[in-house]
């Protein structure tokens, strides 16, 4: 059973030779091989080579063609501030003035900002790893992209004050995600990871999710699936239990859940959805390998017997994580072989 087959089996709650393991290694791959984060997020070739070296080093089951949360908004017209050792941030928002909404254009993924570099990374990873390993892309979910286009405070106040207008911003963000996600699939990713931390109940209440975000996520996942995505994979950060019941309707097939969510509670709320989580990201920086091994063993004991589980972190593994802690997570999955 290769990595891709193992993950496909887990998604369908079928028996696997071992529990698949996908640490969310993004720019940690750059740090691991001695490249700067700044180079990693700007150059598709560098990103792909770092990911290839990281998977060769650790031996987990998936690689990520993923740069940062500023990629889409930059392609739409925002200006980013880059630094060498941290992810870029938005310096000027493309939709600083809501009156500019009608003038926004869904960016062409082959021409806009760093999107072509991300597509290049995806195609290199697919060429090198073929169908042995899951190649994961990434699009921002509608809520997170709306906040990246407008700035978080403006976006949230608009959502409250002019919900219909905010709905149009979400529709635009969904269009961007669909266009970019389909381009990633065409370039070689098996599945674009939908990253929507701002849809968390820690940011907006569950009824907001139901009224504003559910239909957009449903449209996004439906389009990605029609475009050939292997699986619909969603990450929403924080205490997301209250919105889990909407995941099946949205079309979610893999639910990444954060460290603050009780694993058995997640399983109860999502009995037919593959779960993926949930070691605390900071533990990879601060804990010992013994701590990580023990946490993984606990998760495997709870979730592996019921199948439909991928061992993972609750969110991105910080770039500065200790490599031995990532290795400890991978080893833990093999202890069950």
């Amino acid at each position: 059973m290769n990595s891709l087959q193992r993950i496909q089996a887990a998604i369908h709650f079928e028996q696997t030779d071992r529990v698949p393991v996908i640490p969310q290694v993004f720019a940690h791959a750059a740090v691991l091989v001695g490249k700067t984060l700044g180079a990693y997020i700007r150059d598709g070739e560098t990103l792909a080579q770092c990911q290839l070296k990281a998977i060769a080093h650790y031996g987990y089951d998936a690689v990520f063609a993923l740069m940062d949360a500023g990629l889409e908004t930059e392609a739409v017209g925002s200006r980013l501030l880059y630094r060498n050792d941290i992810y870029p941030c938005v310096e000027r928002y493309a939709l600083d003035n809501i009156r500019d909404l009608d003038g926004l254009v869904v960016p062409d993924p082959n021409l806009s900002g760093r999107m072509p570099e991300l597509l290049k990374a995806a195609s290199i990873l697919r060429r090198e790893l073929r169908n042995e390993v899951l190649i994961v892309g990434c699009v921002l979910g509608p809520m997170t992209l709306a906040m990246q286009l407008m700035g978080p405070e403006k976006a949230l106040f608009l959502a409250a004050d002019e919900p219909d207008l905010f709905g149009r911003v979400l529709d635009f963000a969904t269009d961007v995600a669909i266009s970019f996600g389909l381009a990633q699939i065409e370039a070689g990713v098996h599945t674009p990871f939908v990253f929507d931390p701002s849809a968390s109940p820690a940011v907006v209440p569950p009824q907001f999710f139901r009224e504003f975000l559910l239909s957009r996520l449903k449209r996004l996942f439906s389009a990605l699936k029609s475009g050939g995505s292997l699986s619909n994979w969603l990450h929403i950060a924080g205490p997301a239990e209250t919105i889990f019941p909407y995941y099946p309707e949205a079309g979610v097939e893999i639910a990444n859940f954060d460290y603050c969510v009780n694993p058995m509670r997640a399983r109860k709320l999502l009995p037919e959805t593959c779960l993926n989580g949930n070691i605390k990201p900071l533990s990879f920086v601060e804990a010992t390998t013994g701590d990580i091994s023990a946490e993984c063993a606990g998760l495997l004991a709870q979730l592996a017997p019921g199948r439909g589980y991928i061992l993972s972190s609750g969110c991105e593994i910080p770039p500065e994580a200790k490599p031995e802690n990532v290795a400890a997570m991978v080893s833990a999955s093999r202890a069950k072989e």
Partner: protein
Amino acid sequence: MNSQAFDRLIKALLDGDQSVAVAEAVDLRNAGVDNEQIIIGGIETAMGKLEAKCTVEQFNLLEIMLAGRAVTGVIKALYPDGPPPATRETVALASLEGDVHDLGKNIVKTVLLAKGYRVVDCGKDCPLETLIDKAEREGARTICISGLITSIMPLVRQVVPMLQIRGLTGIKVLAGGAALKQASANSLNVHYVADSVFDCVRYLEESTGQAPVQSQ
């Protein structure tokens, strides 16, 4: 009659309905209620109810931001020539250098202002020296650091030692935010890690034992 008017003001604040909250506050003042009573009976009561709600149900930024905006609107309406004097201690607030996220910091600022604290906002991406200089200059009794990324943790660990070197040992240091709240106070070398903005306020009230000072 005033009791019902206060209830309406509190409801509008909790609903985040700024225009209704402002109208209710102005009506109360026109009925002879002084500003201080409106703040204590209206704003402080509403903030207490919001805190209780966020503890019992779930904390979400949107509701707190809307309530905060309504509070700001009421205070501006009551004090058109400038905000009233703070009734509680001074707090210096920042996101440290390398962290450009300020949504969490701004929410803490809004709630602390509404609770009567004097807030010195040192901004985002703030160098450590600048934060400590301002805290000293403004007489802050507490420094609050909001952090969304784990890479600033080494900087957070330096705050208390730098305060000690400068002889500012009376200043307490609090950390919070999505990244920092994953860590313990011990590992961050701070006095307290707050799980939410209201947890931050609780710590401030308990650590200083400071009830609001009646304004002159």
